[in-house]
Each structure stands twice: as C-alpha cells, then as structure tokens.
C-alpha cells in the first residue's frame, strides 16, 4: 500500500502487525478494541498465519506465551479490564524472558468503568503491572500513523530484549479513522532465538522457565533482568520536543492527550505565550533525563493526562523539585479540549510573568 488509506486505529495497527511479521494473534472481545480481533480473524488466515479467539484474556496471553516460547512473533490486544487479567501472563513472560507484543486500547476504570477513552492504566503499564520486579517497554503513540509506525518497532524491541512491549493506545486512537501510509522500513538486526523450544534436535534440551528455587538463583536472575532494563533505559528512550525554544512553561503529555495539547501549544504560541511540549513516546523507559535537563532551564511544568494523575509522578521524579509540576487530569473517560488547556496555559503565563 503506497498511497494514503483511511483506516481506524484498531484495524491499522492490526495490519501493521501483519506487515511486521506477526505469526499469531490471540484475543478476546472487549470494547473499544474489537476491530483488531475482527480484522485479524479475516486477515491472519489469508496470510496463512494463526488467529484464535480465546476463551478469556488469561488464555489469550497464555497462548501468546506458548507461541513466543517456540520463537514465533505473537501478539494479543485488549482493553483495560482485559489487560488486568493478562497481568499474570505478562509477569510470566518477564520471568521467562519471552518476547511478546500486547496492545492496550485503554478505557475508563476502575472496575468495568466505561468504554470511553482513558489513560488511567499508566501505572499498570509502566510499573510492570503484575507481580515481581520487572518492566515492560511501553510505547504511547499519538496518532493512527504512529500506531502503524510503532508496531514493527514493538516487535523488534520485544525480540531484541526478549520481553513484553506494550502499545498503550486509547479508545479514541483505536476508533478514530485518519489517513495513513504503510511504509516498509528495514527492521533491526536481531539476535537468533537459540533459546526457542523447537524440539531438542542436535542440541541439548531447551527449557523456558521462571522458577528459580536454588538459593541465590532468583536474585541472580533478577539482577540480569535489571541490567537489561538499564540498557533499555539508556538506549531506547523516545521523546518529542515541540516549541521549547524560548519557553518558560513546559507541558508534558503523551498519547491522545499530547495530540490535543500540541494544538493548544501551537495556539498559545501564536498568542505569544512562552510554552512548549515534551511528549514522551516511550513511557517506559521514561524520558527522565530529557525532562530533568528541561527542569534546569524552564520555570514551570504542567502535566496533562486523561487520569487523576499518574504520569505526573514520573515527571515530578524527573524534575526533582527544581520547578513546580502542576497537573491537569481528566479521569473516567473525560477528554480535555484545546480551549480548556489553552485557558490553563493563559493563567500560567500570567503567573510566570509575575
């Protein structure tokens, strides 16, 4: 597809996963991501690949676990309540060091919440989410085109680091349509999957495990995981800076919220307000260094997110008291408007001038 096509985020990311060489998709219906499952049910068999509608999210992530253990590229998708159920499997994937891609098209919570778009799974996504001392790489796209562009990256990162990559979208990104372009880009050079379970032919038995009972072994395994995470923190941070030149106020936002903030910042600049945007694209690894550097330079930080304030904690950790960090949060499915954010920026501009 070399020309722009109009697709909704859910279908677009599904097609992008197929183009990225996804061998198997396993999923269970939940709004607002059902278009992914339906699209995969049609397209995966066309490509001679595997699609299964599982009996639950527990089963879906376990199927991913099984396929991934044999060296295949496997993925699942769900929305918030379903992703909660998947945390068991995500923890096991971390323990066993298996690559997987999980898409969370977030909706409002807690509990059954609503089907409205939300960003309230940030804590769950960036802190590991399940039991144990582990991380997942978290990508936070802001447009349907970015959803498309980050799916191959998600699979590459998963394979390179043998871990789960979570693509954190939301109900708007999943449902909205916009023109996109599918472009074939070269992938990363990846290590061979010599750990995969393919049958012990001409080699010793391979074992995929997360249980380490011998004294000191689990601590050793955890230190190995942490060393890997340190490498990722060092090498894989993605972050966009917008209109920071001459700024005094920096808004930090990701995903769909960042898209809305971006327009507010653009308008504020037209009206002469000194404001810029830092948009974390990887939510873990978080752009701590970038924000820390910005804290040396800018006077005030404002976090805008569709939750009661989750990412703001990471921003505060990065700013480390060097500047005030304010929050504009819209929990429970609320979506901020450009005008709403512009009003806050106006107020803050007046206060920084004083």
């Amino acid at each position: 597809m070399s020309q722009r096509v109009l697709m909704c985020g859910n279908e677009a990311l599904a097609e992008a996963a197929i183009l990225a060489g996804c061998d198997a998709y396993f999923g269970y219906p939940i709004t607002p991501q059902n278009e992914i499952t339906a699209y995969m049910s049609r397209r995966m068999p066309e490509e001679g690949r595997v699609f299964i509608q599982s009996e639950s999210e527990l089963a879906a992530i376990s199927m991913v676990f099984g396929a991934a253990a044999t060296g295949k590229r496997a993925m699942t998708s769900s929305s918030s309540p379903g992703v909660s159920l998947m945390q068991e499997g995500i923890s096991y994937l971390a323990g066993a060091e298996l690559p997987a891609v999980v898409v969370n098209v977030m909706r409002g919570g807690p509990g059954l919440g609503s089907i409205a778009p939300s960003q309230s799974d940030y804590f769950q996504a960036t802190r590991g989410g399940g039991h144990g001392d582990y991380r997942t790489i978290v990508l936070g796209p802001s447009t349907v085109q970015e959803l498309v562009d980050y799916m191959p990256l998600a699979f590459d990162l998963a394979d390179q680091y043998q871990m789960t990559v979570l693509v954190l979208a939301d109900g708007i990104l999943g449902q909205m349509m916009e023109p996109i372009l599918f472009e074939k880009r070269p992938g990363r050079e990846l290590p061979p999957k010599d750990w995969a379970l393919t049958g012990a032919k001409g080699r010793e038995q391979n074992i995929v495990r997360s249980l380490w009972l011998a004294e000191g072994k689990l601590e050793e395994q955890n230190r190995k995981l942490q060393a890997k995470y340190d490498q990722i923190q060092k090498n894989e941070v993605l972050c966009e800076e917008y209109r920071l030149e001459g700024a005094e106020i920096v808004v930090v936002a990701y995903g769909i919220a960042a898209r809305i903030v971006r327009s507010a910042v653009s308008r504020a600049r037209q009206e002469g307000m000194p404001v810029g945007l830092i948009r974390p694209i990887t939510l873990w690894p978080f752009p701590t260094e970038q924000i820390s550097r910005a804290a040396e330079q800018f006077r005030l930080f404002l976090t805008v997110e569709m939750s009661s304030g989750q990412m703001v904690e990471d921003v505060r950790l990065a700013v480390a008291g060097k500047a005030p960090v304010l929050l504009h949060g819209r929990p429970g499915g609320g979506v901020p408007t450009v005008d709403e954010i512009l009003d806050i920026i106006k107020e803050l501009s007046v206060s920084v001038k004083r």
Partner: protein
Amino acid sequence: MTTNGFCEEVIIAGFGGQGIISAGKLLAQTAMKAGRQVTYMPSYGAEVRGGTANCMVVVANEPIANPVVTRPNSLIAMNKASLNKFGPRIKPGGLLVMNTSLIDTEPDLDKTIEVLAIPIDDLAAELGSPRSANMVAIGAYLQKKGHLTPDAAAQALPEVFAKRHHQTLPVNAKALHRGTEFAANGS
C-alpha cells in the same frame, strides 16, 4: 481547533440503520482524496445498541488535535433525538441540516445558526432508494459548506461501500446530487 486556516467540525447523527456511519466515512474519504487533513470518529459500543448512531468528522488544513467534536460547526440531524442532543452544541454561525421527514418541530437555536430544512427521507424515497437518505444529506451539506464538491464525494463512493453493495453506487450518486440540488434551489 486552529485559529488560522480552515477547520470544519461536523456531527452526523440519527437512528442506527440510517447510514450515519457511511455518510461520515464518505465525507472523510472525500476529504482525504482532496488532500485535506481529516479525522473520523464513530460512536461505539453499547451506545450504538441503544438505537442511536452518530459520528464526528473534522476536516482541516492543519494537523487535527482532537477527533472528538464537542462544539460542531455543522450538524446533520437525521432525527429528532439527534437534534435535541446535538443542536444546542452547534457553534454560533454554524449550520444545521435538519431532516424534516422525521423532525416536525422548529429548532430553538442561536439565531446566527443557518438552518437547512430538507425532507431527506422523502427525497430519497422519490428516487426509489429510501436507504440513500444519508447521501441526500451529505449532498445538501456539501452544497451549503462548499469545502468539498458533491462530484468528489460521488467519486469516493466505491471506497466507502463494500464491493457487494456496488450496484447501489449510481443511485447513491444520484441521491448526493439530489441533496445538492435541493440545498441550492430549495426544492
């Protein structure tokens, strides 16, 4: 959303089955082919099962911030419930395309809002294709706004409808033009 440059935010709303989704997709597809920035956002989930359907289309020259339209420039209201729900949200100076086949009351709106009263279902029925009402609506809307042409919309039809419905393309194109004609001439 943007202060300079063109930005048109439309809500199309009606009953499920009135072709609301196809109408929105057609508008979005036409805008994309015309090289515009465009987003399309449907209502989804349990809401749809309640029998109402709506979608939001934003067409602009600059990158679009938010596909969720809270204050539309234009509303295409295919039934009374939609008019009641979204009518009060139309921006001053905006446009209401109102389906008088199903709406028998005068809207009580800001005086700066232009109202196009058009018997959409009746016009579609006269063409022998009651299900083309959505196309009559889009044709009328485009005539009033002028940012995309009905001909461009007609050319985008094959990409919006599944191949199994392609025998309906001629009548849908006709319905588009009938809407345009009514909006231009008032009959």
